[in-house]
């Protein structure tokens, strides 16, 4: 067992990569074997992921299952893994989607099957790696690397405009994250002198903490009180807003927040069903997760200053996304814009900086992964039968596909937050948190308007597609879901019900992380009750000393001159 004590996260992360190597060794014509091996790999990864989820002790340390070894140490990096409650929940979501995505692609993907499954497995590794990274640069590497398989997935197996969508997706995300890279390196340098600084999340955060508290104290004071700051606090006062802006831009593009969301409808519409599921299910969460883990706790003062602005963007995203949905005729585009709206709730919950808001936001991240993932999945089944995305080409589907319709409606309920489904818990908590927060009442009000609009566009779409009379001859003989499709859908429906009726086991794991998030984000807020330092400080394992670390430094040898 001792192997898994230290290596469980490594196993979860790299198992898909090992199976990718197996797939690579297979001949490309063995389609069945490629699919089977990928599925087995994802299933096995699910087993380990679930194990990790249950190993996580909500009453234990903040970061658990840590693993840390020296890696490129001279430049302040180490290979450091670890998960807190939110990360382990998102990790569970990722491994949960893995096997289902493979099942969803068995008939959808018909060419270049081996490459497709390779991309899926590599993508899984990069996403899990990003979630478990405790070193900021390691996170960045996984964060960037996950673009490559997703880019190929959209570009190779996508719909008609796939190349444009793939390049747009890649470049959009790249610009944001490159600026973040500059900010990461900059914050590393300001955080301490040689020997003190590190790219490790714990060290970085703890090094900045005192300065952030100092800065918060003076920025809540009278005008000009910050002029007397020295050292790190002064540096943060001057450059903190810029660095926060760089982090926020990178993650806002990923979320995506209005107005940098324009890559999303294209990527979602063009992506194959597996790509859409992963994109909506996991990759968008990297944005909110980034705000939660990095952008806001590292720069609480700048984040607090930018909070009204970001909250306005989040609310615009909620309402704008919903209005765009109402205007869509393309079903996939509608689901894509609904993501913009839903992720707006996640952002609003984060920015509320209340316990309810943060919990709701975290829960909503999981919910959105399940409900939107399932919507894309189900629409994929429909698309395989009819090869059209236009609502007007459907109508009366319920008559020929009753089981499918039932499943779709259940997921729709989850998406529009009907009580009893998981969506209700998340959205309710976010709204409650927003109303309780220091944000003006209007934010909550507009967000609630978004809920109503959300119900409107989803039900309107369901009505047009599934109910009424069959208006198209082609739709008269569509076959209902087969066993494979039912098996793929069932886990989603089970989770919708379980998470809606028994949220507590899930919330238990998120709770300690939310408390800490709220404490850390409140550092920048005026009049916040000062949380205890042991709540604020990040405790992580220290780097094991090694021969390389203990190596004596080499003195500068003078130039030997020979006569």
């Amino acid at each position: 067992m001792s192997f898994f004590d230290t290596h469980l996260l490594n196993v979860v992360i790299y198992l898909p990569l090992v199976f990718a190597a197996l797939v690579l060794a297979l001949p490309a014509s063995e389609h069945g074997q490629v699919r089977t091996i990928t599925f087995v790999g994802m299933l096995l990864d699910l087993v380990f992921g679930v194990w990790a989820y249950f190993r996580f002790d909500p009453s234990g340390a903040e970061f658990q299952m840590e693993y840390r070894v020296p890696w490129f140490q001279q430049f302040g990096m180490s290979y450091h893994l670890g998960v807190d409650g939110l990360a382990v929940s998102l990790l569970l979501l990722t491994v949960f989607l893995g096997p289902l995505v493979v099942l969803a692609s068995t008939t959808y993907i018909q060419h270049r099957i081996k490459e497709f499954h390779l991309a899926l497995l590599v993508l899984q590794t990069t996403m899990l790696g990003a979630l478990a990274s405790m070193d900021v640069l390691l996170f960045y590497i996984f964060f960037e690397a996950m673009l490559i398989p997703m880019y190929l997935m959209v570009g190779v197996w996508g719909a008609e405009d796939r190349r444009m969508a793939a390049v747009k997706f890649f470049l959009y995300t790249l610009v944001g994250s490159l600026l973040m890279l500059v900010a990461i390196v900059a914050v590393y340098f300001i955080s301490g002198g040689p020997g003190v600084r590190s790219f490790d999340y714990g060290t970085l955060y703890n090094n900045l903490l005192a300065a952030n508290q100092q800065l918060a104290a003076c920025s809540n004071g009278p005008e000009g009180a910050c002029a007397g700051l020295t050292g790190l606090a002064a540096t943060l006062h001057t450059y903190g807003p810029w660095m926060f802006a760089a982090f926020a831009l990178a993650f806002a593009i990923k979320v995506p927040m209005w107005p940098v969301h324009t890559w999303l409808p294209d990527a979602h519409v063009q992506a194959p069903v597996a790509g859409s599921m992963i994109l909506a299910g996991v990759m968008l969460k990297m944005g909110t997760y980034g705000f939660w883990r990095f952008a806001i706790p590292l720069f609480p003062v700048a984040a607090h200053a930018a909070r009204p602005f970001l909250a306005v963007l989040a609310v615009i995203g909620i309402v704008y996304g919903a209005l765009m949905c109402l205007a869509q005729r393309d079903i996939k585009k509608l689901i894509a814009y609904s993501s913009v709206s839903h992720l707006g709730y996640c952002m609003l919950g984060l920015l509320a900086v209340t316990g309810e808001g943060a919990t709701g936001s975290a829960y909503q991240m999981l919910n959105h992964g399940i409900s939107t993932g399932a919507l894309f999945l189900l629409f994929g089944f429909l698309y395989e039968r009819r090869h059209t995305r236009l609502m007007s080409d459907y109508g009366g589907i319920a008559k020929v596909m009753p089981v499918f319709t039932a499943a779709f409606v259940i997921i729709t309920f989850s998406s529009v937050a009907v009580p009893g489904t998981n969506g209700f818990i998340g959205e309710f908590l976010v709204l409650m948190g927003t109303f309780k927060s220091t944000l003006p009442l209007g934010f909550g009000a507009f967000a609630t308007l978004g809920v109503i609009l959300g119900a409107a566009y989803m039900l309107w779409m369901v009505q047009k597609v599934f109910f009424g009379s069959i208006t198209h001859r082609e739709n008269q003989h569509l076959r209902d879901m087969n066993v494979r499709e039912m098996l793929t859908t069932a886990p989603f429906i089970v989770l919708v019900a379980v998470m809606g009726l028994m949220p507590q086991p899930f919330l238990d794991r998120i709770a300690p992380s939310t408390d800490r998030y709220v404490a850390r984000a409140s550092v920048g807020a005026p009049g916040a009750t000062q949380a205890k330092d042991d709540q604020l400080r990040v405790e992580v394992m220290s780097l094991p000393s090694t021969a390389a670390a203990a190596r004596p430094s080499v003195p500068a040898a003078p130039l030997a001159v020979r006569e």
Partner: protein
Amino acid sequence: MNLPNLTLADFLPMLPAIIMVVAASVLLLSEVFLSATASRGYQAVLTVVAAVASGAVAVGLMFEPPQEVFLGFGVLDPFSSFLTLVVSVGLGLAALSAVGFLRKRGAERGEFYALMLFASAGMSLLAMSSEFITIFVNIEVLSIATYALTAYLRRGTRPSEAGFKYFILGAFSSAVLLYGTALLYGATGTTKLNDIAGPLQQALTTSPALVYVGAVLIAAGFAFKVAAVPFHMWTPDVYEGAPTPVTALMSAGVKAAAFASLVRVFVTVGKGMDPKLPLMLFATLALLTMVAGNLMAIPQRNVKRMLAYSSIAHAGYLLLGVAALFVAAPGEHFRLLSASSLSGGTPLDVARSDALRGILYYLLAYTFSAAGAFAMVSALERREDEEKGTAWDLERFAGLAQRRPGWAFAMAAFMLSLGGIPPTVGFMSKLLIFQAAIDVGLVGLTVVAVLSSAAGAYYYLRVVVYMFMHPVPEGAQPLERNWGTEAALVIATVAVVLLGILPGHVTDWLAQAGTLFGQ
């Protein structure tokens, strides 16, 4: 007259260059005894063996203490040894990709490899040279060999056009460099870099114009050689016209050697003068080169030409690292502390030695990525298309992932590495340079660098789009395989991925070498 007292120990540091020259001589001599139809397969093998041997010797020399050789005309230090390693890597990969290239054209001759070896010997020696005349001579050794290589394929108009253009502009830039050297000599009375700092400070009070004009002219001469904007005009045409393996050697080796010499000259000259001048000079060059190089590469449909512009852009990132070497605190006496960053010094000292290490790592990274990419280009081109200019069109990459998945994967790795996307070596090396630049405070310039590299990602990705997302064109000719290209691709791909994931080994090694720079 006293004859200089040279011992065997003076020749040991030159061993890599000696190996290359001996191999070149063997190739030339053996060619005399061969009939026109004799098999010449051994020539590439011999070249690769020489490259491996000189690379291995260079690695061994990295752990020698820094020392003057040839009475101060050269310096053996880890900096020059690492550069020799980079040159050997470039030579080896270029020679491997030349195997199939020459065979397709029926142009296998010993001279080709001999010229490559001579050029590489010049590069290796240039990295060691610490005296202006020696620098000039070595620049000429490597340049003349590359002029000849550029025009090696005499059929058609392109090679001669490229060769002629390269020759005229190369000769012009050498003259500019020489003129600058002459001015500095006039001001200081010495051509040895190790003696110049003191006289230079005196000369700055008596005849500052001479010093500054001299320094600027020298910088301009080097800017030609490294293809920095606005001295880049020759690059696209020459890179496109030259035989592709030669282009690989030029983009990897010539650039690396020129950068090495530029750094060596200005670090010493900078000691004597206000480092603001080199800082301004290189920061401006870096800015122009990064932005213009990337922007001009975007519209290119010709992959070889695109890679030429990309090589300009990469010179820009390297110049950013060079500029970082010259950031000094107000009133600080400029010096380059080149010991490992573990051993103290002021924070700026540490940052500057990180920049130096970043430059070296970047050169190695670029050599693997670019030489690999050019090997791929040479594998795909056909002789018949060269005159039409479509030999390197993006269309030739269409559907490569279906025709040769391994090649497409390798090329994708090179493109991502050149674009600086993790987990490739291109990302790590960019990170090192950017990190050093931010550390010394060149944040604005670094932001420009990352934005321009985002623009750069567009044209690198386009190759990937064609390889993976476009269908195989109708009537595509079968792709020939040969051991040289395959070997070059495998080696470069493994290096690009491995050095990206485990960069620590090389950088630790650079740190272990202690003093990088022997001054």
